[in-house]
């Protein structure tokens, strides 16, 4: 294979399978904001690397030929959701980009769009409600289960608006969940919720994921007939494809809880040693 064919194939792979101006706008917009914000307020290189990998990960699984394979292989579909719901939002949230993104916002947009939205009581209440650790955990697991109901999965794979809703939902919910986990002093929240509560939630969301992942991985019949219907494009036997998809739902997804817990424990430890007690290390009282 010559260098030109490799280049051509790479370019062909990187072009969107199903071009979405919304995804492009959201990714380029966030990238510009982050870049601008970094130039103003700076920050550690580690955080920037995590943010960029997370953002790039989301873009790649949604807007390259990866999406084609995700539509025609259960395994690739599960990898796509692992990136959208676990890996990429985990990296973005752990890099704590709020301050940088805020600094990147042009003054006008900040004053006339973001501030009024932040002060909007309805949005504020809604955000507060979904950022409750148990609620966030329940939505996180609930969405995984919802889209894996075979009949729901069937229509999600056939209907483009439903398919896009599924993927957008996974990305947004992933960001909200990991944001809740790592963003200890959520803006607009009066209670700095303590580490223990989040650790428990991280632990709790692990089990339902293990259960559904193991159920799919060990199933002896084809649960998701839609992939046979729509044509499989990877040289994988149907049951292998399903078992691999189940394993992806089971092991790496659950391991993200462990990774999240480790990050929290390190931060907790650091905070204790610095003698900087949180307003409420052990409870809700301020």
């Amino acid at each position, binding site marked *: 294979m010559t260098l030109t064919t490799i280049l051509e194939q790479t370019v062909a792979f990187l072009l969107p399978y199903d071009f979405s101006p919304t995804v492009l706008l959201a990714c380029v917009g966030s990238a510009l904001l982050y870049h601008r914000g970094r130039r103003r307020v700076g920050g550690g290189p580690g955080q920037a690397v995590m943010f960029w990998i997370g953002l790039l990960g989301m873009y790649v699984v949604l807007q390259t030929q990866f999406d084609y394979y995700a539509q025609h292989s259960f395994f690739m579909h599960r990898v796509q959701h692992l990136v959208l719901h676990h890996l990429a939002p985990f990296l973005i949230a752990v890099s704590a980009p709020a301050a940088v993104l805020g600094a990147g916002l042009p003054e006008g947009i900040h004053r006339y769009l973001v501030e009024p939205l932040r002060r909007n009581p309805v949005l504020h209440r809604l955000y507060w409600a979904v950022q409750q650790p148990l609620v966030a955990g329940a939505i996180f697991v609930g969405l995984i289960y919802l889209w894996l109901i075979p009949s729901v999965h069937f229509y999600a794979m056939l209907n483009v608006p439903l398919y896009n809703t599924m993927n957008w939902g996974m990305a947004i919910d992933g960001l909200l969940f990991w944001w809740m986990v790592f963003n200890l002093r959520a803006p607009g929240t009066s209670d700095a919720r303590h580490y223990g509560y989040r650790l428990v939630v991280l632990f709790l969301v692990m089990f339902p994921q293990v259960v559904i992942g193991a159920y799919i991985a060990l199933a002896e019949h084809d649960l998701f007939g839609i992939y046979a219907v729509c044509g499989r*494009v990877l040289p994988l036997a149907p049951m292998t494809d399903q078992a691999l998809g189940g394993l992806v739902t089971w092991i790496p997804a659950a391991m993200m809880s462990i990774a999240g817990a480790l990050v929290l424990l390190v931060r907790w430890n650091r905070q204790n040693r610095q003698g900087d007690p949180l307003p409420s290390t052990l409870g809700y009282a301020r």
Partner: protein
Amino acid sequence: MSRPLRHLILWLLPLFLLGCSGEASYQWNAHDITGVMPDLQFHLTDDHGEEVTGDDYRGKITMMYFGYASCQHVCPVVLGKMATAVRGLGDDADKVQILFVSVDPKRDTTEVLHNYVKHFTPELVGLTGTQDQLHEVTKRYRVGYSYEEPNDNGFYVVNHSSAVFVFGPQGKTRLLIDSQETTDEITADLEHLIEQSTD
């Protein structure tokens, strides 16, 4: 309006609504995909070498299936099943047409395709196109296809979908038949579709 009359109407209204839903209570054997996917549309070439679009196939119930003529096991079975199901309609058979879209244009030339489809049933039309045209139509119906490595004789397997998409006479998506449905079940669904479209 007197009180008893109002009561009567209130009580009868649900019954009336129930009556309406009773008419729609036919249980499709195939998956009902009404409104789920886009209307029948494509740019391809038929087995007489004519360039055709989806608009050329309005007016009849249309079944569309993706495959390739060298397919040894799946395609002949599915096409045979569809042909038998259509024959089961008797006089109404001419209200249905079957489109066989070959995703293997390299081997399935107009002539090959024509000789292949004429064995099944007169309602069957063979279609194929350039890779760009095939990508367009397969993407529209969210089906994939890929070519495996050729063996020593140069024969290669094409992975393709097993779905049969069924469209109403105006080209609206109605049903998706998978490999579970029997010939009789397909005939029953087609009969019901014809009944609905003559209303």
